[in-house]
């Protein structure tokens, strides 16, 4: 891909993304948000975030030959419990990453 095509792509992506972000904000009043969409929006964070999280936690990383990546799954459960009980994102992240690194480095030692 030459430089012109590359920059053309970047600019096209930039415009398209800006249009997606501003569409309803700019169109407010001219085209209104249907009531069903308004109701649906309150479930957007829960469903989109879960859809982003679940495959990364449950499915093994690309190129891995294991069926379930247990350290990642357990680390996510620990992070979720931390988030539930302490409502603190940094604690959950540290607990999740800490337990993942501990399991990845210590489990092979235990198992042999």
């Amino acid at each position, binding site marked *: *891909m030459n430089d012109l095509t*590359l920059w*053309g*792509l*970047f*600019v*096209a*992506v*930039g415009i*398209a*993304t*800006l249009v*997606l*972000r*501003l*569409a*309803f*904000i*700019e*169109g*407010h009043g001219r085209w209104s*948000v249907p009531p069903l969409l*308004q*109701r*649906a*929006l*309150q*479930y*957007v*964070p*829960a*469903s*989109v*975030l*879960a*859809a*982003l*999280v*679940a*495959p*990364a*936690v449950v*499915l093994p990383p690309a190129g891995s030959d294991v069926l379930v990546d247990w350290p*990642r799954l357990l*680390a*996510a459960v620990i*992070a*979720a419990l*931390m*988030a539930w009980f302490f409502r603190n*994102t*940094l604690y*959950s*992240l*540290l607990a*999740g*990453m800490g337990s*993942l*690194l501990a399991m*990845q480095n210590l489990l092979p030692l235990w198992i042999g």
Partner: protein
Amino acid sequence: MHASAGRQSFQQGIQALLPLAPGVLPFGLVTGVTAANQGYSFFEILGMTLLFYAGSAQMAALQLLNEQALPLVILITVVVINLRFLMYSAALAPHMHRLPAKARWPLGYMISDQSFALSMVRNQQQPHAPMDLWFFAGSSFSMWLVWQVSVILGVMVGSGIPASWSLDFAIPLSFLAILVPAIRNSASLSAALTGGLVAVLAHGLPYNLGLIVASVSGIAAGLLVETRKKPAASHQQGAKA
């Protein structure tokens, strides 16, 4: 008084975003490292990062560029991954449409998963109050800055970060840490469970369509549970009226 309240909210927005920065940083680092390793110049990577300002879309685009995909395929993929911004835009419209264009456009450009989720969760605590846009601006701007800086750091660090650190896992963990407090009732729980399950099942779909299918399924599940729980109450109101 008004100005200082706005400034206070802006700072609260920054403070709310900062705990998420460690989750964003590795993703930006990975993006910067990947782009640099693919041979793009610093100027190209900076331009790409500023124009995209969408992490998962940028990662997907880099992968497709590496596979010599058609530019049109890359553009469509990015739009599909970014369709969720349409939903964020609709949710923010009632709060943002009165702003002057000089505030509306930069703020719209800076809409992110993180700052949107933080503001929506904050707004859920007082559902009938107008959204605190200064809070949204604070979290959006700091998210934008964290992202740009972390990609630039990634370009500078290059491939010095060992894969054994599993830094890629910090992203799903940070989404998880925002997701858990967003689950407030059986309807939002159903939305999350359905969205997660469908995303896993539909993971093989091309062009990241699984993410869109899963999100729509999750939203439908949330609406279904909400509708099944409420008819008794709304019928009673209807009978009285």
